[in-house]
């Protein structure tokens, strides 16, 4: 795999401004990882679209605007001039549903790994730093969580605590924090034996200071990669939960619960089954391409981490 060459860009950093440096860094990334850059661009476009749904979306996601189950690109839809993807089982515009649903799905898909990995990073570092009994307890706990299928853990949590957005995020975050504890801990074991940690301790830094000022910043690349490679899986997991009716509930739209009703009407209106699935696939593909390239740049050793 071709590596980005930061050296060339670094040589005249003194003279060029920060923006120029970022620009040349992005160009390097684009040149060495064209698929990753494409994924990144697609991803940013979709994020902008769903964030600006209030302005871009032709209708609100919960309004019945036309006949039920209008096929995409039909004469009726072309007359309307807006219903490009047709309407769903309640006559709501699919484009608007995709935009607003995407907002929820992507929010959950990004927040769950972010919260999970952030918690896992601190716990993993603390586990490596303190060692002894604490380390042992944390490791057993992580083993226990990881032995179960992630979806079972998430299911049990949402069924028990309710089908709201925060609960779904937390339910998914549990698995990501457990798996990140493991990866971060093994990295932090090497870090906490470094001389600068010893030096920090020698000048009387507190444990909290060493962890948050020295060890956390040095583990950040690993954690960033973990988040990047988990977002795709998190979006899929949210969709699966919501699809089964044990995730995000209507009337809040999500790509997953848009598919719930699709199972009944897909024989005569396949478009309502195809559109949300395509949206998930496109986003997850873009994230995976971007995440893989990010991993190559930030930390090639993590290649086998899922």
């Amino acid at each position: 795999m071709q590596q980005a060459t930061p050296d060339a860009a670094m040589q005249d950093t003194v003279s060029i401004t920060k923006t120029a440096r970022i620009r040349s860094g992005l160009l390097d990334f684009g040149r060495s990882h064209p698929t990753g850059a494409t994924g990144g661009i697609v991803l940013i476009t979709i994020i902008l679209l769903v964030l600006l749904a209030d302005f871009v979306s032709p209708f609100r996601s919960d309004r019945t605007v036309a006949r039920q189950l209008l096929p995409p690109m039909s004469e009726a839809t072309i007359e309307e001039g807006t219903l490009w993807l047709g309407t769903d089982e309640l006559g709501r515009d699919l484009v608007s549903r995709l935009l607003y649903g995407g907002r929820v799905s992507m929010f959950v898909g990004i927040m769950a790994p972010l919260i999970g990995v952030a918690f896992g990073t601190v716990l993993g570092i603390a586990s490596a730093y303190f060692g002894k009994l604490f380390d042992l307890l944390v490791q057993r706990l992580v083993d226990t969580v990881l032995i179960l299928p992630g979806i079972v853990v998430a299911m049990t949590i949402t069924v028990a605590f309710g089908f709201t957005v925060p609960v779904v995020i937390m339910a998914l975050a549990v698995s990501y924090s457990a798996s990140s504890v493991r990866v971060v801990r093994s990295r932090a074991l090497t870090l906490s034996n470094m001389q600068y940690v010893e030096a920090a301790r020698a000048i009387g830094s507190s444990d909290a200071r060493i962890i948050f000022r020295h060890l956390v910043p040095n583990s950040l690349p690993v954690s960033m990669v973990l988040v990047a490679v988990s977002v795709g899986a998190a979006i899929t997991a949210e969709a699966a939960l919501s699809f089964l009716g044990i995730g995000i509930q209507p009337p809040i739209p999500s790509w997953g619960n848009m598919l719930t009703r699709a199972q009944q009407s897909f024989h005569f209106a396949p478009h309502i089954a195809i559109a949300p699935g395509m949206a998930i696939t496109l986003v997850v593909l873009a994230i995976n391409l971007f995440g893989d390239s990010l991993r190559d740049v930030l930390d090639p050793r993590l290649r086998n981490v899922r």
Partner: protein
Amino acid sequence: MPEVGSPVWKYTLRRLVLIIPTLFLLGTILFFMLRVLPGDQALFITSGEESVASIEDIEALREAWGLNDPLYVQYWRWLSDILRGDLGYSRYADRPVWDALSSKIEVTATLAFLSVVVALAWSLPLGIISAIWRGSWVDQTIRVVTAAGIAMPNFWVAILMLLFLVKFFNWIPPVQHVSVFEEPFTALKRLILPAAVIGFRSASTISRMTRSTMLEVIGDDYIRTARAKGLGPWVVTLRHALANAIIPVLTMAGLLVAALMDGAVIIERIFTLPGLGQQIVDATSARDFVMVQGIVLILALFMMLWILIIDLLYAWIDPRIRYE
């Protein structure tokens, strides 16, 4: 079969013994976590539209089922049952947990096993072909398909497959459930589609892994030597390259079990297969904690045994690995 007392034997035994504390810890954590949830079984069973249960009735049920005892008493009761190999009695299903679960375990286990078969049958040839003809249009196609296979949610693939089969072949998989041991053919007809859906996703991951490890190996000196001494391309590829390339792929297989189980739980619900995934959702919403604990312990045991088998297999394929 390795002889008693050999390193393999000791290693296996130690791993098997280590399963016990993990299950114990899991069971204990789960026991207390579930008891924190709002609502209990007495409340769930007596609630409903036509329910005439009074608060006194519910209270009487709780008293009779021991739900009013202090937590440590309930915990002790559960623990002593488990140690006797008794998973408990589900009030909601009104039968012992093990009785209720045994047929569901069969469904989930068969599904998981079939998906592994499908995944391997798909992925290994694809990965090898992709590596051999690197850069060709075949390779490009396989890479696009597998990248999409990882990105597509498996429940969506299931919906599309059903749509496709009904639209073009007017065929719906059988809905009546039968045991694999009684009517293997009918059962397989019902299970093969869900297994293909679950396997497809894992197959994408494995074939990409196989491709990259094959490519790493193909450049090695010993492959050139094998070619130079006149071995045919198939012998070189399968006997020499694949044997080494498969090792990192197997490590992934341990992780894939989790993915397979995830898939099984979701896909079971789409195809209305009466398996563990369906059961755990029902049991959690019914606050049937004994049942939830039973399912989780069985799933965990299943996963740990699987990982152990893969670790053993791993060392069997690669003699450089020592048991420690």
